[in-house]
């Protein structure tokens, strides 16, 4: 699980171009979206959907399905562990 979280953080930093951020600076439990967290928005949500599909073989049809799943690195990792096909 910890390795998956590390992997996810690296993918987020690279795909979303989070300049000057390191995986250590992303708190596993902190919200990814909104001003109190990383400040991601709906475009980033679409990019995260692609990370799930490309890296873990999970398809999400509607962005609205992702709301709770994308809350934090923790929730993302749990969802991936339960649903991954690769």
């Amino acid at each position: 699980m910890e390795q998956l979280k590390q992997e996810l953080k690296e993918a987020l930093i690279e795909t979303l171009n989070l300049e000057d951020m390191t995986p250590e600076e992303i708190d596993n439990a902190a919200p990814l979206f909104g001003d109190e967290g990383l400040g991601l928005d709906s475009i980033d949500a679409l990019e995260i959907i692609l990370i799930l599909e490309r890296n873990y073989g999970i398809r999400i049809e509607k962005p609205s399905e992702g709301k709770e799943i994308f809350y934090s690195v923790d929730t993302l990792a749990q969802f991936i562990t339960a649903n991954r096909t690769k």
Partner: protein
Amino acid sequence: MKVFITGIGAISGIGQGGEEHLASFRSGQHGLGKITLFPTRHDVPVSEVKATNDNLKERLGIPRQQTLSRTALLGITAAQEAWQDAAIATTNGLRVGLISANSTGGMDLSEQFYPLFREDNSRGRLHHVASHDAADSTERIASYLGLTGFRTTISTACSSAANALMLGARMIRQGLLDVVIAGGTDALCKFTLNGFSSLMIVDREPCRPFDASRAGLNLGEGAGYVVLQSEKSLHKSPYAELCGFANSNDAYHQTASSPDGTGAWLAMKNALEIAGISPEEVDYINAHGTGTPNNDASESQAIYRLFGDRIPPFSSTKAFTGHTLGAAGGLEAVFSVLAIQRGIYYPNLNFTTPIEETGLMPVTSYSEQNPIRTVVSNSFGFGGNNTSLVFRQINR
């Protein structure tokens, strides 16, 4: 100084010219079908113009071997129709301008060039990339119509053509031009289809503007142009007046509209102010109404905020034509003018259940001879670019 509309031209998935469009609206015939213009793995309905590039060239008398983008061909078709409709016998002494809009230039041809070019930089026909820029179709229209004066091109995503009409009206008002052909054109292409797919806002079913179950837009293609004239240059009885226009930025997000519809509200409010018309006097709104959850919620809020409990009849025509992007404001200007001339309410197809928050109910059936004096037409786009136009019946 007043600005009058003396010519209209339109081509879309539901027909060419005003009469064909009205026949489709009357019979509820939408333009949606499978994608035939290019091979693609996306299986979604789109509203294609039912004519190949060769058909379009033949109708225009353009030799088949001449390379023109579909964007230019659609634009020439509609602009020429508007220009003929205005029937200006001589342009001697008149300053005639062309203000055209589009969202992706000659991308339909660039898509033939680029896959070859990226394999080998010496490959790909240069003719196929020469019309890549957004100005190419405008220059082609000017050259086809023999126009030598002012021309420019506007690109503000889905509000592009509405901004072209707005600039035309303002240049006439300030006495810089006497006559302006203004509108927009866009051809369906792989780039656009994949782009909107990447945003996950393309519905696999026919779109349902303003319905609670709406799940996205359908793409379309086409072109719509009007001829604008100053009072002094009039030679015939005009169809309507373009009396109000405003452009405002939502400044909320790169693609999404604000939940309270600030940009849309400002555009409508300011356009009515310029026209000197109160919201109570508006008889019909041709809404932007794309069918995406976000746009329709935001536009509904803006309509509600401006009109309160006196919401005029409104509808989106995009379930018929698809979203024609850079052409939408031009096509819908043509529909607005026809609405005033014949008192038409256009049906908003596929509507059954209102959006919970606002409860707005669009017009769902076609009717003519309604008392329509004033029409508001909305065009909102990515980048927060929102524009509203106000059309008014001529006082007789």
